């Protein structure tokens, strides 16, 4: 098993297409997207209508790409959008895939 990073981004669904582009540009080879809801400093995001939906994006990548994604999100989106990004260690087979 090989150690790589899992980057998880939880944010507003309005950013979906923009983030997908960003991730590709920053070197991510793929991602998984999940509809999400929850509550935080920007209030309840209950996904009951389309302006109020959250998404969770998961990216498995190497450490360099992971920190590039983190920096980019912080610079570009943290001030104006509801967003949480965190990085965890994961183990995978086929490290060349990521």
């Amino acid at each position: 098993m090989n150690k790589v990073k899992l980057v998880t981004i939880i944010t507003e669904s309005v950013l979906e297409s923009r983030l997908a582009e960003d991730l590709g540009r920053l070197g991510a080879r793929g991602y998984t997207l999940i509809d999400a809801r929850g509550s935080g400093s920007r209030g309840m995001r209950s996904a009951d209508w389309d302006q109020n939906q959250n998404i969770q994006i998961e990216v498995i990548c190497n450490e360099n790409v992971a920190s590039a994604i983190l920096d980019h999100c912080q610079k570009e989106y943290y001030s104006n959008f509801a967003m949480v990004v965190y990085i965890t260690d994961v183990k995978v087979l086929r490290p060349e895939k990521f």
Partner: protein
Amino acid sequence: MIENLLDPTILFFLIGLFAGIVRAELRLPESIYEILSIYLLLAIGLKGGVQLSTTDLGVIIVPASGAILIGLIIPLIAYPILRRLGKFSKADAAAIAAHYGSVSAVTYAVVLIFLDKRGVRYEDYTTVLLVLLEIPAIAVGIFIARLRASKVAPSYSRLLSEVFFGRSIYLLLAGLLVGFVLGPQGIDSVRIVFFDLFKGVLAIFLLEMGLVASHRLNELRRVGAFLFFFGIGMPILSGALGTIVGWGVGLSVGGTTVLATLAGSASYIAAPAAMRIAVPDANPTLYLTASLGITFPFNLVVGIPIYYWMATTIH
């Protein structure tokens, strides 16, 4: 007023609103809002297109210019009010102003039901006015925000596609085109789904909208008293402007009521999506609460009868 309340669509809305306020265990499936809003926008467009197919297009030019004028003027009136009296930041004021200049398609559907029930005739091309009113105000709002030094520069290509090919405009135009091309006979095969079922679907949608609006009401404490009064005062002001313009361009009583309602309504589909991208430093809680939590319920229950009264008075 009471007579206006006794309609299935309005009652369903109030039931949804009440369910949210008392925190009833009522939660419609997440995708229902999306499915129903797609249906409603297509159906509204289709109905307008069919009516348009039998209309002399030349008569539209003057009322259409009136509608665009309203869309441009309302944000310019709303912005200084929000800045001076409301003390909102430039970005917030511009974003809220854009919402009040733009329109709500569901409020439009409800005013048509209101007029149909009373047997009041209105012009066949009102759907065109709906589409025309949706865009200019959003453009003006973005322009004000840009001009007044919003720090964030958006991608313009993304913005254009969001404004012109955003879901609500695209579906309305699609319905309009299909209805226009096929005409009354051509759409016979889908008449049951899009015309006959319309009111029932609208009633379910308004139940959901009542729930959504009640959740916005919970945010009222955070947005302050000014926005509450703005959410009621601004539509009356815009409605009066719509009445004067409607009368001025020669619309009937029904048509004037529709234009006044359009002017008085605030967007909550197209404008929020565009503003989130174009003016991300504006706080969405402010414009969503004002537009959806205050103005939308106000218009459905009290506003439309007022606009009808204004239109009959001026004629």
